[in-house]
């Protein structure tokens, strides 16, 4: 089945702003992306993206493979800098700072905007060392302090009870879901404000996925979470806002409830109801 989707020409357009109802009154957005264009070599992967996200909510990016959602996510902590041939135009502001500005310290940015990857990637070290690594990078050297943060992070990642007796054993010996929670614990240990999650549960079984989802709902109290997901039910279950991307464009951005019950664009409706994608 072929579905024709009108491709819009990308004239500058106003940033999509979340409706005020769900936000703290008059709070200014934590993340502001405007007129963002990204090229991989000659391919234009992001087209004129404008989106604003508020603090302490979960925003889900959905859309078919190759729609640019992961690319946009990786713009938020400048992980795309590492890829050859990437050119970025436009602006990304986090807490008012242009993160592509000249005076930005990328190290400090990545400390404040943490990331959890699709494929769990614990270091081939002990569980303890996995979490201590980030702490030492940021100058925390006192063992008692490190121990305390490790316990707190593992508790926050709902992993403490499972691993407290084997902190000094390799993280590679854990199950896939546990490994991913070590990665989450590692990310939250350095106390970022924003956590970016790139399909964090896509390689996990349903039970492990459910635990990660519960965890995300829990973490929302302390952190701002932006999550890329292929799983529509997951977006519906855990996010407050949902943004739908298609072919490098942001098609629609609204409260998750509205996106899944009464989207204003036909494309969004087709996608969330599973008619394409």
């Amino acid at each position, binding site marked *: 089945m072929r579905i024709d989707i009108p491709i819009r020409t990308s004239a500058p357009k106003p940033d999509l702003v979340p409706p005020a109802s769900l936000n703290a009154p008059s709070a200014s957005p934590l993340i502001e992306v405007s007129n963002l264009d990204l090229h991989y070599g000659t391919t234009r992967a992001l087209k004129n993206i404008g989106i604003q996200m508020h603090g302490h909510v979960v925003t889900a990016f959905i859309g078919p493979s190759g729609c640019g959602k992961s690319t946009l996510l990786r713009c938020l*902590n400048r*992980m795309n800098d*590492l890829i*050859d041939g990437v050119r970025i135009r436009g602006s990304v502001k986090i807490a008012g700072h242009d993160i592509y500005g000249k005076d930005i310290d990328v*190290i*400090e940015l*990545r*400390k404040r905007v*943490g*990331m959890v*990857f699709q*494929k769990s*990637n*614990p*270091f*081939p*070290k*002990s569980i303890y060392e996995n979490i201590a*690594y*980030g702490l030492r*990078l*940021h100058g925390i050297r006192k063992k008692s302090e490190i121990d305390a943060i490790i316990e707190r992070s593992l508790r926050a990642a709902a992993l403490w009870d499972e691993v407290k007796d084997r902190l000094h054993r*390799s993280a*590679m010996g854990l199950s896939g879901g546990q490994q991913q929670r070590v*990665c989450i614990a*590692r*990310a939250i240990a*350095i106390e970022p404000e924003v956590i970016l999650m790139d399909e964090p549960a896509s390689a996990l079984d349903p039970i492990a996925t459910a635990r990660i989802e519960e965890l995300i709902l829990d973490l929302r109290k302390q952190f701002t979470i932006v999550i890329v997901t292929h799983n529509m039910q997951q977006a519906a279950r855990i996010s407050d806002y949902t943004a739908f991307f298609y072919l490098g464009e942001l098609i629609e951005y609204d409260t998750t409830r509205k996106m899944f019950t009464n989207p204003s664009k036909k494309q969004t409706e087709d996608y969330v109801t599973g008619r394409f994608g």
Partner: protein
Amino acid sequence: MSTLAVRSILPDGFPRARFDVISFFFTGLTGLSTVLILAILAVIVGNVVLLGWDTLSWRFVTSGTEQDMFDVNKAGVLPMIVGTAARVILMTLFVVPAGVITAIYLTEYASRTSLTTRIIRSAVNNLAGVPSIVFGLFGLGFFISFVGFHADNLLHPNAQNPVWGKPGLLWASMTLAVMTLPVVVVATEESLRAIAPGLREASLALGATRLQTVIKIVLPQALPGILTGGILAISRAAGEVAPILFTGAAYYMANLPHSLADQFMDLGYHVFILSTQSPNIEKTRPILYATVLVLLMLTFALNVIAILVRSKVRRQMRAMQ
């Protein structure tokens, strides 16, 4: 299609296995080549052991050549063992850091497609194809006549004889290091590329710099590969004579080398001397074989040390995987 598939699984429909001539031929060919390589190795090593074993003695490996290097009962190879071991170990100290840093630059920092990267990479590959005697001449021309000469002008302006501007242990080791650089670079590069990109991303996403990521995450993972590079470099360098011919090896030294500027006697070079300078080839032949045997054993010993270190590192890594 489907009827064919069904028929072929019927009990009486099984096609008889056919004898595949081409498979048989190529399987035989690969087996034969393996046997051939093993046979060549066995012949060489067996020949050396058979003809050299009787001359090998404690006295032979612990005494020098002060009395007569061509007399079976008086000749010894201690200075050559010391010289060869010293130049190989020194070379390792030079080539491993240089090679590892080059490989880190190529895989972790440089853009994969940039002109600089391509120039460096093809330079490294071409280095591997240069004949070893050319490295010897390079060492003479660059290290001794240029670096050594200017070092003498700076450090020993009033010396009668050149100190650094002549063949010596340091220059021979450096020449060998240049020769074995590609081996280390390629082995290290391969092991760096085998590391999951996710580990680097995880480290950078936590706010590590590239340097911190390389030192704390990437290098520990690449250590076995780096050691493999070292082992290959040692094997290649230990038996080489041409690069040290003009850069450090001596026909005869009364003393063991006690400084990096000193010349040294060398097992490989000594084999060459014994086979070309002897007044009586027949009488020196046992010394010749015994010297070759000692060279093989020394190379083997240096390799075993490196392999033991590597397996220890691997064991430690496996405990964390």
